[in-house]
């Protein structure tokens, strides 16, 4: 009796302690969480952080280097670069999250149906993904944006439409493997419905993959949208989109490199942060890691 109580105590405290050890002991995760929190904080408190409105021009202070003309210098219209990059985080995060949400939902659902049902459902979905896959994504996105007209929302739609195929393919393969697992067969023997099997048995076992995919494609989504903005198809000029700022800096790359360098660094940091976060989460979320 005493022994059993002691055992229970050991088990209980081990679980609580192991959770903390796992979370804190994962350096990748902690670094990712830190960068993610930083970017989120910047986006949330942009109004407080920014020194001036992102579109306030001061033509007397054009192309000032960092230090003299504000923390990160000024651009060709004398706008404060720090404030523009800070506000840019809002656009980047919003666009990235929306794109990733759309492509995850679309790709995962397609992949689940294709992998679970097989047959003609699989053939139809597989050929659509193959066609999407075969075209260069930026070219396809360019075509879609040109057809819909240049705007940030159309860029979001275009990027989501060209990038869900990767999810669909991977989830399809994963589903094909999982649907033959005995626990799925057990679920069918219990009379579980197809939808329930797909979304409650198979889907949770793909979470590790989905999280990695989502974090890996979030920087990709930010990069693609900034690329389209850079090309003039996404956000339109006064907007502090990192792609727009990069584009504006191109003409002053030799005399005022900071205009392009800082939004570029912001993109790199955000991308790195999400990658570390995703890798860390994958390790922690796998229940088998908990022992």
């Amino acid at each position, binding site marked *: 009796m005493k022994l059993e109580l002691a055992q229970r105590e050991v088990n209980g405290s081990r679980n609580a302690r192991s959770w903390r050890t796992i979370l804190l002991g994962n350096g990748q995760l902690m670094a990712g969480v830190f960068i993610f929190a930083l970017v989120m904080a910047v986006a949330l408190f942009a109004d407080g952080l920014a020194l001036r409105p992102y579109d306030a021009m001061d033509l007397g202070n054009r192309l000032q280097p960092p230090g003299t003309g504000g923390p990160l210098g000024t651009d060709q219209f004398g706008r404060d670069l720090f404030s523009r990059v800070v506000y840019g985080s809002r656009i980047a995060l919003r666009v990235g999250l929306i794109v990733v949400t759309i492509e995850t939902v679309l790709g995962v659902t397609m992949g689940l149906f294709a992998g679970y049902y097989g047959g003609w459902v699989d053939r139809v979905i597989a050929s659509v993904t193959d066609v999407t896959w075969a075209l260069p994504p930026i070219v396809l996105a360019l075509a879609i944006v040109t057809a819909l007209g240049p705007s940030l929302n159309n860029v979001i739609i275009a990027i989501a439409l060209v990038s869900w195929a990767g999810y669909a393919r991977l989830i399809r393969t994963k589903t094909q493997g999982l649907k033959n697992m005995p626990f799925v*067969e*057990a679920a069918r023997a219990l009379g579980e419905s197809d939808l329930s099997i797909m979304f409650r048995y198979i889907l949770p076992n793909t979470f590790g993959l989905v999280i990695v995919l989502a974090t890996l494609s979030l920087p990709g989504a930010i990069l693609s949208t900034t690329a389209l903005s850079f090309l003039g198809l996404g956000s339109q000029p006064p907007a502090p989109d990192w792609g727009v700022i990069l584009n504006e800096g191109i003409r002053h790359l030799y005399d005022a490199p900071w205009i392009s360098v800082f939004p570029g660094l912001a993109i790199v940091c955000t991308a790195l942060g999400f990658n570390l976060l995703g890798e860390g989460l994958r390790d922690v979320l796998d229940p088998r890691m908990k022992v």
Partner: protein
Amino acid sequence: MAGTPNGTPLLQVTDLVKYFPVKAGALQRVVNHVRAVDGVTFTLARGQTLGLVGESGCGKTTLARVILRLIPATSGQVTFEGREVLKVPADVLRQLRREMQVIFQDPFSSLNPRMKVGSIVAEPLSIHTAMSRTERLRRVEELLEVVGLAGRDATRYPHEFSGGQRQRIGIARALVLNPKLIVCDEPVSALDVSIQSQILNLLNRLQKSYGLTYIFIAHGLHVIKHVSDRVAVMYLGKLVEETEADVLFEGPLHPYTRALVAAIPVPDPAARKIRAALQGDVPSPINPPPGCRFHTRCTEALPQCSQTEPPLVQVSAGHRVACHLYHGA
């Protein structure tokens, strides 16, 4: 054959056939079939255990999956309490799923690694009953204790348990809806020998207290011996012998059964038994040998064995054999 103590049999399987198509070539045309189950007939009385034995690849598991309608049959009939399992519409099938359950071979892959034990065992209740959460939890804890685990184990994940404990979880899940029939598909072959007997004893105890009927699949007779009332021996998709367990172990008739019985380990180092060890491998079920499927490995094959297939006929009360050695002439 139908003479069972409780009147109508619980389960009747008639001429059950399952062929898997073999596709080849660019057009994926069906070039051949794997004859996994090829005309199996048997009846199972209430409260009894039918041991189904045979080498790996002889179609035992396929037979079980077809009976449970987890995969469609090619032809044949399965009657469970007067209902045609293979033909009933979806809503009746759902009802049947409550009454026919299955325990799987591999306790590691048959439990969803993302669900807690409590949810795994409660799942059948949420599908088939209108029980509230607390009622389900109470039933789950009760069942976990019945199978020898603790009620508080409901909050843990499958990976925290050993193989034997996981198999107990699988048994609790199969038991939670009070089924009438449980198909045990090699439930102990993935476990240590010391754990095997614990699980077999548990299954025997549960059968007595809940009046369960089992189909118990195993690839060796030594496991079957502990649990079965009747034994059916399967070879390459066909039954070759079926009889009472005692009769089978005392006087096996079919040469294949005799080889299997001789292969049961004897716990006596002095007993130097001459073993009629089986030679060779099981032939391919894609092109099974003509005539008796066992004649390629049989030590007593007669000339007609390679030409005509021996039917499964009754040689004495409740004892059926498919072998030319016992067919009159």
